[in-house]
């Protein structure tokens, strides 16, 4: 129970930072802290833990979105399952390169799924707007990829240092 409570508090803090701090600055608007966190959680702690985070983060962030309730949770769920599959079947170890590739796949997948879901809900009249795929959209995806790569690099460095210092190699569940 305490584990779930911790997860909820972490999710709430991350959502708060994303909605009310990162969105203020033009340079950080495209940075998807929540997505990068989920991708990294999937790599480090495995699918189960990241699903718990996805539930809390997805539902909380959906309160602040034009998309219908639970949509972002579904998108996160698809992304982390894809990341988990790729990590286990394509990449064999926890490396910097694999983290970067998975961040790119996650960011592009998230952007496309959001656009597809928004358009689907617009067609069935559940939302009033959709996401136009134009030059601006492509520009935002590229900015998001660059920013997310920087962030995942920071996460990677942090994780590597922590694992080395505290000898926590067993934390890497997927490597067992």
């Amino acid at each position: 129970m305490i584990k779930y409570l911790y997860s909820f508090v972490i999710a709430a803090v991350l959502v708060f930072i994303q909605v009310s701090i990162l969105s203020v600055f033009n340079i950080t608007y495209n940075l998807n802290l929540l997505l990068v966190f989920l991708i990294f959680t999937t790599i480090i702690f495995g699918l189960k833990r990241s699903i718990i985070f996805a539930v809390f983060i997805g539902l909380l962030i959906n309160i602040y979105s034009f998309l219908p309730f639970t949509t972002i949770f579904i998108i996160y769920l698809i992304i982390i399952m894809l990341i988990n599959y790729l990590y286990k079947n394509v990449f064999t170890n926890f490396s910097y390169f694999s983290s970067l590739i998975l961040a790119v796949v996650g960011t592009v997948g998230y952007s496309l799924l959001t656009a597809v879901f928004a358009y689907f809900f617009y067609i069935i009249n559940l939302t009033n707007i959709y996401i136009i795929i134009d030059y601006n959209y492509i520009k935002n995806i590229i900015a998001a990829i660059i920013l997310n790569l920087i962030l995942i690099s920071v996460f990677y460095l942090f994780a590597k240092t922590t694992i080395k210092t505290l000898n926590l190699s067993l934390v890497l569940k997927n490597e067992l």
Partner: protein
Amino acid sequence: MKKKSKNKLFIYLSLAVFILLIFLHFLGFLNIPVSFVLDKFSAGQNSSFSFFTKLKYSFINFQEAQDLKNENQELQQQINQLLAENTQLLALKSENEQLRQILNFNKDSEHDYVMSKIVGKDINRSNTFIINKGKNDGIALDYPVIAGHGVIIGKIIEVRNNISVVLLLTDNLSQLGITKQDLNKSIGLAQGEFGLSIKAELIPQDIELNEDDIIISSGLEKIVPRGLIIGRISRITSTENDLFKSAIISPVLDYQELTVLSVIIPKIYQND
């Protein structure tokens, strides 16, 4: 093997929770927890949004002398106020003339306002604001949102019980009927351009347009009243050979600097 089946069970369990959540959401059972979370969040969110917005602009204006900035802001406020008053007076004058002609006073132009604070932005749509007022405060879809003294900045596109999402006029999907201050009829359509400016389109060639003309809402839509300032014409982009005129409208306010907004609630909808 055991671990795999455990993982599968966890995924099925997650899906069951997800279906249950959708079900509970549509039945309205999630309103209380969502309201609780929002109540706890929104005060802090507004404070942090305001703080970081101010911080952002303090960096931008760091090189400027403080007194010059203050003076400029005061003058800008005065201009906006005078602009709003002037626009409203002209709109009222023309409306009054029409009303005198038909001797029938129409009270539909009266509105109530709901003050709201910006708590953030939608992460999937950059040209949006999330405000801390929703259905419980009488807000509904498509209601116009203004800032300062009658400057329209967007419309409501999503309403929850305690929260709403505002789509800015600069978004590509925003559309609004427009006119000039001194005209009674609608002259065209304002449409957002890449989140940066607003484009005025479908303006007949016989309408005279000049740079720096003030463009206001035409009142063509029942919910959006006439006379709300949209911006100034900064550039006329069409030529004489085009079927319609088009122009670029620059908003009179910097949308990114806003922290407080008002939602206009038309009285005709208040008893719904």
